[in-house]
């Protein structure tokens, strides 16, 4: 650490005012504050300082995402070798998934950070760190077979139109990673839904050559429900084996890269909750809202497969857990008042199930539910604060 600090201090003068690399000041600043907590303090107003600034916060979220990413990589390989019916060891499986997912991560970070750097240079700001998490989320919420140029276009769109035009990190109304996914979903629907994109059946850098087995079916569990003609569905894995709650919980099923395993997501959730970076109220209320709504549909819902899908299964299949843990708790776009978090979270859970059950066009409702509630978060906060003010005003009024 000391050696690193020395190097940073040594090159620093070049980037200060008057140095020869002055115009790259914001780039240097970005790297320096990324490595070390800055020792500058705010100049006005009263502030409470602690060591956790937003870069440190972001890193914890990234660490929390690592289990989901690693499991996602393994699952990509696992599904692939299952589809071509080859028996390979753990290591080979993981390498296949690693090589399949790595380009997605590189493209997402390359495009997103590139735009951030350019904008920071133009505006003369310091580089904002918000994309550290968004760039990590994007590869986890897309199907593994999404073409890289689509990811690049969607990332660019989201960073520019969902973030920079609103004023950069911390000012965005919508979750940037979800806007990326929404863009892909509406712009290139054939690559974001259906049954051909969730499992990589081709090779990755020459690895995993083989022909697909005859009984292969690449639909996700929620996709199977959406197209089911009967009301009681027996979910199937890609080889036609039947799957249930436990499989959804472990996550060796087709789906977006990071969303399948509830175990890996819960590991991340524990880290976020222990460090108090994510709100347990939001997380819990998403699950409670979703479970309650799904239970209502189970009991009195319409006679469709989605409505008869048991409520506990709704919580482990699709992106429900991932969205609840990593997306709904985004500190920028979620409600900030403590009561507001309960309302916000519960409505996300409810909306997700409503979309899943009542709109067969969208088998997965998590993305749309969170984006929709992002719009309402400020409104919820407004009324929570307003109610509090009114309550206290009443107490303050002098009785005649």
């Amino acid at each position, binding site marked *: 650490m000391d050696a690193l600090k020395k190097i940073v201090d040594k090159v620093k003068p070049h980037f200060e005012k008057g140095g020869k690399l002055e115009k790259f000041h914001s780039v240097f600043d970005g790297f320096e504050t990324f490595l070390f907590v800055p020792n500058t303090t705010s100049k006005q107003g009263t502030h409470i300082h602690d060591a956790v600034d937003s870069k440190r916060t972001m890193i914890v979220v990234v660490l929390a995402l690592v289990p989901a990413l690693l499991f996602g990589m393994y699952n990509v390989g696992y599904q692939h070798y299952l589809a071509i019916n080859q028996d390979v060891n753990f290591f080979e499986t993981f390498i296949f998934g690693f090589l399949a997912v790595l380009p997605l991560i590189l493209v997402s970070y390359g495009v997103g950070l590139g735009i951030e750097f350019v904008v920071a240079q133009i505006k003369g700001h310091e580089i904002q760190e918000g994309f550290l998490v968004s760039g990590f989320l994007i590869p986890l919420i897309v199907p593994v077979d999404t073409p890289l140029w*689509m990811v690049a276009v969607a990332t660019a769109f989201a960073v520019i139109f969902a973030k920079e035009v609103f004023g950069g990190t911390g000012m965005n109304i919508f979750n940037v990673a979800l806007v990326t996914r929404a863009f892909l979903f509406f*712009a290139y629907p054939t690559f974001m839904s259906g049954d051909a994109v969730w499992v990589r059946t081709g090779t990755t850098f020459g690895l995993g050559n083989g022909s697909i087995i005859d009984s292969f079916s690449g639909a996700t569990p929620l996709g199977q429900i959406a197209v089911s003609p009967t009301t009681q569905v027996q979910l199937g894995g890609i080889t036609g084996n039947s799957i249930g709650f436990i499989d959804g919980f472990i996550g060796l099923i087709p789906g977006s890269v990071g969303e399948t395993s509830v175990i890996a997501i819960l590991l991340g959730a524990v880290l976020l909750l222990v460090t108090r970076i994510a709100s347990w109220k939001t997380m819990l209320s998403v699950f409670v809202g979703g479970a309650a709504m799904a239970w209502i549909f189970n009991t009195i819902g319409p006679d469709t497969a989605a409505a008869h899908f048991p409520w506990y299964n709704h919580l482990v299949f699709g992106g429900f857990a991932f969205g609840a843990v990593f997306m709904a708790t985004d500190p920028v776009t979620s409600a900030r008042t403590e009561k507001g978090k309960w309302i916000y979270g519960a409505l996300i859970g409810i909306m997700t199930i409503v979309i899943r059950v009542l709109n067969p066009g969208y088998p997965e409702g998590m993305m749309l539910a969170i984006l929709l509630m992002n719009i309402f978060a400020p409104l919820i906060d407004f009324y929570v604060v307003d109610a509090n003010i009114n309550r206290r005003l009443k107490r303050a009024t002098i009785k005649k």
Partner: protein
Amino acid sequence: MSKLFSEKTKQVFLGPLSKNNPITVQVLGICSALAVTANLKPALVMSLSVIIIVAFSNVIISLLRNTIPNRIRIIVQLVVVAALVTIVSEILKAFAYDVSVQLSVYIGLIITNCILMGRLEAFAMANKPWESFVDGLGNGIGYAVILIIVGFFRELLGAGSLMGYKVIPQSFYDAGYMNNGLMMMPPMALILVACIIWVHRAKNKDLQEK
């Protein structure tokens, strides 16, 4: 002739093309800009219809302006516009039926287009026929320019064609390129209009609020 192209008339014509553009500055007529711009051809036809209707209704209202009782002026304006819209709509049905089907209700809805009522109220009621005509042309063309730009990009990126002709070569699609389905949806028209406004205001610094 000097009266025809006086400095004021020139301003009346050029203003709406840029610094007083009905769509990008006044933000009027947005609904039709979203609805008809998915392809270039309907956007062109719509633009042409609006130019004609706004120019001639301006002239007619300007001629009548001293005889219209103030209390019923909106009704009179609506009658004039409705008559012109009906004429244009019938002509389209007769000579360009397929486009008229594509535009469906939007030709009829020109009656309620904010640009028309705005121009009639704000300009034709207080100016001479010639100036009103020029003002109508200017605003119509200002509207048309934006519609055509939006229509161009939406059809190019959304369907890979222009005026119905394929312009993106098949080899692109073979290489993995795909049309952007979002371009075909109305929200993208809003975002494109926003981009035009962005560029426009970046170029004209005096339009930016402090």
